[in-house]
């Protein structure tokens, strides 16, 4: 168990820079989720921690050891691959015990460690199976088990849930959370799914185009997104972003009649989460275009002047398609028009 610290890490392939100055401290036992769209550099960062890629500049520390020049085997990290990378020619028992076998631990110790991990993951009855004889969820758990057996300083999860169906993914999310509580080990988890990030993480690192967008707790990211990218990426459905201009305690949305009572002046980007839209009263008028009903709640796609916004409201509904509804906003966010940075 150890803390993890990225000190001014950069990574480039030839002249293409894929990671720009990542400088982040992760506390011991923390659950860090790296999130971002595909190609944002999150997997590269994970592979840099593992030592599967070299970093081009900066330092990487695990606890009080500087590891960036170490071979992967010396870093004492364990990784769960997206494809699980289970050894197809070994049984579950052999797969899970491989790392200890490599360290030439006594067989009895290996067996005990494997059994313990198997118990934790409810894999005991599968120990003599081969990966080819198991379902996706089972393989996923074996991959976890293989990592647990090692008792590493840091766990690295590379999109571990992406190959599972929705129900199983939810189930495993809970499992992961339980596991983390039990193991109390630092975890770095890569995903492109913001729900996974919000539900699992102690802290989230949002990456885009190789730049760190924001680093903070799920709450911080949700409540105070650092820029429009984070604002749209975190939270589902995405935050509505509208071009707005304010003056004299009033804010008008471009192309829309009516004004909001907000104290801000000059042009800016107005951000409103779908849950923060009030439907049924207010100074704005929008036409309901599509209704997506989800049981307890519904999503209303509303045409507001030239814009389309999404509102999340509780069922049962009192509106119908094509109806003109009055709108108001609750909590709002303001971003710079040019840079997208939170104002």
């Amino acid at each position, binding site marked *: 168990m150890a803390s993890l610290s990225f000190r001014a890490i950069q990574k480039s392939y030839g002249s293409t820079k894929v990671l720009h100055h990542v400088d982040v401290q992760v506390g011991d036992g923390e659950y860090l989720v790296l999130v971002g769209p595909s190609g944002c550099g999150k997997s590269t960062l994970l592979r840099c921690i*593992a*030592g*599967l890629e070299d970093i081009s500049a900066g330092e990487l520390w695990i606890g009080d050891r500087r590891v960036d020049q170490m*071979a*992967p*085997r010396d870093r004492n*990290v*364990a*990784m769960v*691959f*997206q*494809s*699980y*990378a*289970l*050894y*197809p*020619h070994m049984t579950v028992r052999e797969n899970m015990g*491989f*790392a200890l076998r*490599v*360290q030439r631990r006594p067989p009895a110790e290996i067996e005990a460690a494997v059994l313990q991990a198997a118990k934790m993951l409810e894999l005991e009855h599968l120990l003599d199976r081969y*990966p*080819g004889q198991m379902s996706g969820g089972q*393989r996923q758990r074996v991959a976890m088990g*293989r990592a647990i057996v*090692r008792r590493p300083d840091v766990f690295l999860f590379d999109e571990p849930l992406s190959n599972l169906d929705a129900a199983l993914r939810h189930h495993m999310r809970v499992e992961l959370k339980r596991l983390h509580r039990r193991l109390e080990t630092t975890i770095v988890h890569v995903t492109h799914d913001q729900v996974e990030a919000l539900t699992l993480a102690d802290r989230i690192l949002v990456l885009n185009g190789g730049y760190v967008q924001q680093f903070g707790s799920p709450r911080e990211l949700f409540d105070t997104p650092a820029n429009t990218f984070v604002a749209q990426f975190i939270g589902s459905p995405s935050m509505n972003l509208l071009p707005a201009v304010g003056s004299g305690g009033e804010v008008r949305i471009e192309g829309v009649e009516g004004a909001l009572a907000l104290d801000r002046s000059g042009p800016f980007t107005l951000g409103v989460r779908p849950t923060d839209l009030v439907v049924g009263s207010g100074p704005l008028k929008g036409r309901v275009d599509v209704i997506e009903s989800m049981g307890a709640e519904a999503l209303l796609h509303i045409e507001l002047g030239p814009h389309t916004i999404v509102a999340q409201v509780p069922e049962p509904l009192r509106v119908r398609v094509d109806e003109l509804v009055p709108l108001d906003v609750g909590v709002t966010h303001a971003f710079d028009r040019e840079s997208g940075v939170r104002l």
Partner: protein
Amino acid sequence: MARRPSTPEVVLTHAAIVGITMVTLYPVLWVLEMAFSPSQSFSMDLSPIPSEVTLDNFRDVIGTFDDEGRWLFGRQLLNSVIVSVATAVLGLSLSTTAAYALSRWSFPGREQGMAAFLVTQMFPGVVMAIPLYLLLDLFGLLDSRTGLVLVYATTSVPFSVFTLKGYFDTIPVALEEAAMLDGASRWMTFRYIVLPLARPALAVTGLFSFMTAWNEFILALTLMGSEDAYTLPVVLQGYVGDFGTEWGRFAAGAVIVSLPVMALFFALQRHFVEGLTAGGVKG
């Protein structure tokens, strides 16, 4: 969900396979006829069914003894087996590591290395026999199985490297990365993860190397000095004389030489079928 073939399709396919197999085996039947018939002449009948069946030819080929009364054919068979198996083992040891390096790492000179392996396949063997002889003479390896094995194993390397490299390319890198994170060194990863997964390709290339040695005649003759040291192809070629060939014995010998190859193929074909090129490691 496999497509259900129509009845005419099944019948036609089986008929085609049986027909092609018969055409393929037709010439081979003559080898059998000559091997089992008492005459030593070449058979030119249209029907390759022997009129008289005898095992004399096999008895003649197998039942040879040297001056000290030791079983000569047995020793020669043993030579062949030792040389061929050793060739397969050495050939594989040389080519697996090279193929793995060429498949995985982009060190400077890699492209040139690949090209060099291919280029050696283009050397016409004829010009190499005498230089090889001189070389082995220099190393004192003439008349020794070691020398022969070295030459054969090396000859088999390029084909093996290409086959194995092709296979290694299909093994997901993630498995090796997983092993490295599990604390395995490069060598351990290769030994415990890559090699076991490449078993099909190893079976195939092993068989190829084996056959390189098993059927080779001219180097075996040039490099080996005594009848005790001959391999079976040399023995077989001995039935081809200055003025005529002892076809019966030659054919019997050819049958004897082919049988182990057939048996090996039959045993390995399950691997063969997935081993030569591809290999999806499904996991």
